[in-house]
């Protein structure tokens, strides 16, 4: 399969995403430049971490106006897969492809650490091969990763099973001690109503090798591989929740 990795001028994790696709997954990687206007046949587009345009204004606020984003939005509207990690998640929220927003960590400090992300739903292409409730140890590294949304949106997200990851402790319990940034409901990642767009703050691409960061992140990429290999059908163990 073909993965497109977008490089905004301030992207920092694009090289790592490309490395994972080519060397760990053995798939085809397409390096996409923010001034490009088409995705060159990518099945799944990764918006990587970093500081897209410096992000002195609001994270991702400028990236949504870049030429490549028009192609990404069109791809998503057609049902194509989009994976936004960290800054990529922020951009997806700014671009309106995902609900909610990411604001300054409650600690007001940048935080780099390992967290445990609990998988809340397997009814997405990104988690279809995983077990519901399973725990992934993944790194986070962000200053603005506190997920917020208004009450109505949060209720809809829950009702439509769009919360994909939550911060949890080693026993899988979700609570304030396990929350690294103040995110509402310990939300670490959400998907779109159509389930083809995922944004998450933890970095699965930095947990794909035993030597550096462990291998828990592979579950996300392997899910996408299987899902596309099976013709794009969800193999999730839950029925897909339809929008009301």
């Amino acid at each position, binding site marked *: 399969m073909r993965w497109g990795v977008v490089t905004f*001028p301030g992207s920092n994790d694009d090289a790592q995403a490309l490395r994972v696709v080519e060397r760990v997954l053995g798939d085809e990687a397409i390096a996409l430049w923010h001034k490009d206007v088409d995705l060159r046949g990518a099945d799944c587009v990764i918006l990587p971490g970093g*500081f897209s345009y410096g992000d002195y204004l609001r994270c991702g606020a400028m990236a949504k106006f870049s030429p490549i984003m028009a192609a990404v939005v069109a791809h998503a509207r057609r049902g194509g897969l989009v994976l936004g990690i960290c800054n990529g998640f922020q951009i997806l929220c700014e671009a309106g492809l995902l609900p909610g927003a990411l604001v300054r960590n409650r600690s007001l400090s*940048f935080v780099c650490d390992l967290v445990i992300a609990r998988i809340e739903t397997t009814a997405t292409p990104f988690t279809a091969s995983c077990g519901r409730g399973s725990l992934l140890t993944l790194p986070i590294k962000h200053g603005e990763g506190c997920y917020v949304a208004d009450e109505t949106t949060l209720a809809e997200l829950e009702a439509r099973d769009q919360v994909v990851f939550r911060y949890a402790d080693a026993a899988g319990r979700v609570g304030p001690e396990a929350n690294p940034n103040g995110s509402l409901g310990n939300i670490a990642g959400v998907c779109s109503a159509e389930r083809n767009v995922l944004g998450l703050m933890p970095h699965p691409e930095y947990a794909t090798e035993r030597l*550096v960061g462990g291998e828990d992140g592979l579950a996300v990429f392997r899910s996408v591989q299987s899902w596309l290999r099976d013709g794009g059908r969800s193999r999730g163990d839950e029925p897909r929740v339809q929008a009301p």
Partner: protein
Amino acid sequence: MSVSAVTADVAADHGLTAEEYAKVVEVLGRAPTFEELGVFGVMWSEHCSYKSSRAWLRQLPTTGPQVIQGPGENAGAVDIGEGLAAVFKIESHNHPSFIEPFQGAATGVGGILRDVFTMGARPVANLDALRFGRLDHPRTPYLVKGVVGGIGHYGNCIGVPTVGGDLYFDAGYDHNILVNAFTCGVARRDRLFRARAAGPGNPVVYVGSRTGRDGIHGASLLASAAFDAGAAAKRPAVQVGDPFTEKLLLEACLELMGTDHIVAIQDMGAAGLTSSALEMAGRGAAGMLLDLDRVPLREPGLTPAEILLSESQERMLLVVRQGSEAAVEAIFRRWDLEVSVIGRVTDDGTFRARWHGREVCALPVAALTESAPVYRRPAEEPARFEQLQHFELAALREPADLTEVLLQLLESPNLCSREWVYRQYDQLVGGNTAVRPGGDAAVVRIEGTARGLALTVDCNSRYCLLDPYLGAVLAVVEAARNVVAVGARPLAVSDCLNYGNPERPDVMWEFQQGIAGIRDACLALDTPVVSGNVSFYNETDGRSIPPTPVIAMVGLLDDVEAHLTPWWKAEGDAIVLLGRTREELNASEYLAVVHGLVRGAPPWIDLETEKRLQRVCLAAATERLLSSAHDVAEGGLAVALAECSFGGAGLGARITVESGMRADALLFGESQSRMLVSLRRRHLGRLRDLARREDVPFTVLGEVRGSSLVIGEMIDLPIEHARARWRRALPERVGG
């Protein structure tokens, strides 16, 4: 300001003494223009000319088969095999960080990154050596938060991982903090770029940010003078950093370096356009003609002197081949950066700058650099020295509750966890960080190979205060031992020599002693100094900092998978101490924290003994005998044992030791040349043989077991509880 207004008084405002101004007139055969005076002011400043240190720096060993580039370029470079070079340097940004901690520290990181990628190397790791005043000094928490925030801001945004560093608090830094930033990059050894202008007619190209009024006279007035009560008024001389632009500059420069367009490249750091142009011309024995009207400006109305001296960040000066202009412009435009041909290389040996049709500078390049003053300032051992070294162990009372003492040490500012600091740094970006901060040295995989780099910065300034020679020896030795502790072979050093006012004989004496110590230790360990920086005038109102020669050591692992960490791995592993514990508490952290004494000579050191210890450890690591390894340093054996329990699964240890010495000396003394290792029992025989062959004392202390650290009848420390206190101590006191 008219040309005729230049006098010795105006020269003094530019940081030049009356004698130096007379020399300027002599070199030129006339009075300088105002712009020329500005050029002399920065080029002959301590910061740029090393006039007080140059004569002594020549004593340092700088050569060896591993050295590709020694001091004199933007950064040093050593061979790391497979056709690659590690390119690295450490540099101070002390004065700006005290005045404006966030921007001061941020631009310190930005400056050292540019030094490294100017050489053609992609930066792979940052480390920072930080020194602050007492934690209970009212300004310290503000400074700590600002500096840590600034380092994180710049490093995180540009996408280079911050993988380590060191941090000490001492009253000696109350009014002069230290921020020493280190960057290591990796380049192909046949694609290193240098800063030698060549080829008359070749265009000189300005790239990066526009030029503004920030940082003017940073080098001459801020970095080359001591502080007094008016320090805050120097804030406008601090530059402002833009890591996003630097990221663009980094990527654009590396892209250009993949082509054959570049003849020479130099970053615009201290003293800006002036120093980068003059240094490139000087190294290449060439001249240069600059048209200041073509320099991209942030705002109109800058004077030619301001354009020449601005220290605006994120700028580079290139000499490219004739005919390459369009290709170079295309690359920088693609990255949305300023690019402007502002001059050309000439063959008349003169640095000329034109502005509005007038020649504002015409300076002989060779004379300007070669006739720069070199001072052999008087040096004298201070009277306090002998008194400080006096210490009687027998007169020291021994505490009753040693577990309580250990907890007190683990919570003390210099020994508690640094997690609060490094959690604010992106340690992972790049995907090669194998050992994150918190170990003896960081380990970073070398992209595309099975090898790894080990990186550390070290200096115990208490040792240096008590004996500036031995303290410097110990800084080198400990840095090497930290690299060995992760299983790497020490390769080379970059040094950042932080001292007080060199015009004071006692400071000059400390400096000379420090150089001698680094020289002797680096010669013994075969780790040449390939780059570095001198920071003088770390002094406020006549009080100077403790001598602080920070040593950055780079080591190499042939197999990065074989790296070691300090943390216990498995119940039942044997715990062995390699090296001898002497009955010495002098100069220790224990003495300072528990007894309030800064006294005695630093711990005994013998460089042959140290080398033998390091050989045993490296052999054991290479044969994969060890489960863990940890240098025994500040806080002694007890603190080292606790630290081995604090990482990983939080395993405890059962230790039995028999010695005839005082319990506090045994537990908290800082005897050198010791390594604490754990290993499977079946490897004990082999390790004993290796130790015996090198005549290194070998003592089985006990084994990894349980969830407490138990040392005979002396210590019983529950790990979970102690670790929580050790981790909380810093954020509680900084208020983070």
